[in-house]
């Protein structure tokens, strides 16, 4: 007899004795199913054949939403026959769909449900997010699915490097990124009630792969998802060039997450974000980034200081428009005003400075081109002449030193 079976036999014997004793004195009502199960499962150290804990905290269950509804253990563990105990070692998995058919159906269409179907054994199921015997209503502050706890719940997998690596979870350790993001910080701050957590963007039973057009994190839908809270930004974006391109079906045009990232979103006015987002503009506007980096503005921001003009300082952020559009911040009509944001007394002459002059483009900037060519020639000439001069001179002086050294000895 294995130890677990021994325990079970002893407990059952005790149970039988208790019944006998009770029956002998007062004809009490039969104990509830839950109490019957807890006779064994209340033992904190109770273990199954494989050494897994089979303990159930009766108090927690009683406090859970299912306990509150007076559900019996067998409502979920339907293949346990209370009159034939002990029940077999191996029970069927609990089927939540018995009651929650709609939710379970939704789940099968989610990334998690699809991954399970595809053989991924660690993808989240009902119990990973909701718990087992201790399930609480989401509005309960202690619930795993409460707004305040969602981040921690999702992060048990998506913020755990081991699980991320084992399950090849998309995006890597996004739990950590999110925790340090502006949304993650807001969730532990004064606005914690209204700050978005994972499910606000991804949904709960509707989490879908972002490749799915119905997913709220689908590339085409992101401006609407973010815009649900950031309404004025969305409005500006829709009017701007990038938003217009999206409306014309150019999905490559940047959306919110291209500049702000998805999980690691940083506050927009921090030096790090201000100087890093320049590189994002450069992923499409490479030429303009290169010519910007040739200017004082671009050099200072490249060193990590954000007090200088960045792309958005002149072009605007969400409302960016081409210079040909009169409403653009860099249009002929508005350019001087834009310069004056920083250079208060700037004149029309001042505003005719070209912040994207290209030293390699003869057609665009002939004067600048030839000035650069002249400087290149001057540098080359001086370094070539003195380079040769120095090499020869060094050779001759070393030889003379060696020769005079020999004479002396």
């Amino acid at each position: 007899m294995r130890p677990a079976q021994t325990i079970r036999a002893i407990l059952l014997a005790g149970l039988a004795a208790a019944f006998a004793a009770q029956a002998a004195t007062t004809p009490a009502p039969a104990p509830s199913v839950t109490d019957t199960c807890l006779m064994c499962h209340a033992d904190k150290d109770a273990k199954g054949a494989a050494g897994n804990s089979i303990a159930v905290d009766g108090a927690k269950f009683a406090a859970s939403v299912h306990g509150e509804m007076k559900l019996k253990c067998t409502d979920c563990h339907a293949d346990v026959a209370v009159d034939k105990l002990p029940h077999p070692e191996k029970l069927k998995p609990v089927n939540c769909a018995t009651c929650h058919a709609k939710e379970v159906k939704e789940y099968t269409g989610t990334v998690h449900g699809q991954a399970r179907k595809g053989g991924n054994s660690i993808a989240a199921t009902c119990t990973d997010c909701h718990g087992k015997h201790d399930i609480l209503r989401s509005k309960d502050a202690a619930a795993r699915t409460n707004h305040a706890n969602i981040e921690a719940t999702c992060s048990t997998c998506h913020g755990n490097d081991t699980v991320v690596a084992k399950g090849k979870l998309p995006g890597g350790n996004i739990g950590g990124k999110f925790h340090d993001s502006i949304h993650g910080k807001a969730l532990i701050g004064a606005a914690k009630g209204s700050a978005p957590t994972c499910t606000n963007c991804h949904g709960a039973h509707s989490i879908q792969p972002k490749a799915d057009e119905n997913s709220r994190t689908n590339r085409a839908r992101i401006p609407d998802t973010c815009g649900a809270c950031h309404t004025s930004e969305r409005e500006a974006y829709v009017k701007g060039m990038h938003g217009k391109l999206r409306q014309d079906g150019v999905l490559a045009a940047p959306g919110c997450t291209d500049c702000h990232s998805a999980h690691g979103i940083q506050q927009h006015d921090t030096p790090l974000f201000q100087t890093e987002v320049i590189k994002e503009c450069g992923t499409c506007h490479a030429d303009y980034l290169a010519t910007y980096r040739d200017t004082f503005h671009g050099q200072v921001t490249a060193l990590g200081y954000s007090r200088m003009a960045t792309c958005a300082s002149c072009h605007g952020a969400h409302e960016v428009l081409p210079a040909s559009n009169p409403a653009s911040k860099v249009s002929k009509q508005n350019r001087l005003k834009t310069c004056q944001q920083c250079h208060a007394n700037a004149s029309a002459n001042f505003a005719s400075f070209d912040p994207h002059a290209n030293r390699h483009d003869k057609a665009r900037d002939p004067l600048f081109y030839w000035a650069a060519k002249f400087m290149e020639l001057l540098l080359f000439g001086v370094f070539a002449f003195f380079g040769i001069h120095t090499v020869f001179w060094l050779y001759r002086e070393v030889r003379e030193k060696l020769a005079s050294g020999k004479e002396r000895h």
Partner: protein
Amino acid sequence: MTAATVTPAAARPDGQADGNGLAQRYVRRFTATERVLHSLLMLTFVGCALTGLPLVFADRPWAATLARILGGFEGAGLIHRICAAVMIVVFVTHVVVMFSKALAGGRLMRLLWGPDSMVPQPQDAIDIYHNFLWFIGRGPRPQFDRWTYWEKFDYWAVFWGMMIIGGSGLLLWFPVFFARILPGWVFNIAALVHGEEALLAVGFIFTFHFFNGHLRPDKFPMDTVIFTGRVSERELKHERAVEYARMVKEGRFDAALAPPPTQESLVFGWIVGGAALLLGIIAIVLIVYSFF
């Protein structure tokens, strides 16, 4: 070297060192004003170079580190402008002192032409040719007069640099003011040439000027003449035989004799000049590293 070791200078009128460093005579080569101006130029140049280079190489990791060490963009910018302002004062002082002294002494023509002038002479072209012949072993080491052609190049490079870098720097320092008169493209070109010319100046001074003046085997590791103002008679004869002969022939030699270099000027030269050399070499290492 203390005064005691060099006292019997008069005992050796031929000026030859006796092999023990005794009886070495010294000739004045730079005035106190010139030495002070060079030291200020040196310090402000290094200051401008170190604070300006991070911008030229802003995309290199070392640039951000160097900028941070120098007080960030604000701190480095302030150092850069202070150094630039002092450098302009040094330059103007030099030009004013030079011309007023020449005018007062009636030596304006000698300043503008001839062997004592910084203005390039036909002899300089001949010297370049002969120096290259010597380099390749086809002739004797040329004998130079007061200023060699490479020294004149250094000198005029500063003039050219002051105009180009100083001028463009002022435009970039006060863009709103100058834009009242000048069109925007001038500032584009000012920014371009400020950086390029600065790279040329830094690249030149920290390599060729260092080599020509200090690091070549004859001078290694440092020629202190610019700090002490004095050159030994032996060195003068070895390096500038034409000038030496001219001084003797014109009877100016005895008047040019000076006490040996002071301890203070030598210490200053070794420490401050040495620090400038070291910083310059570090800057060159960073620049060269950036191109690979």
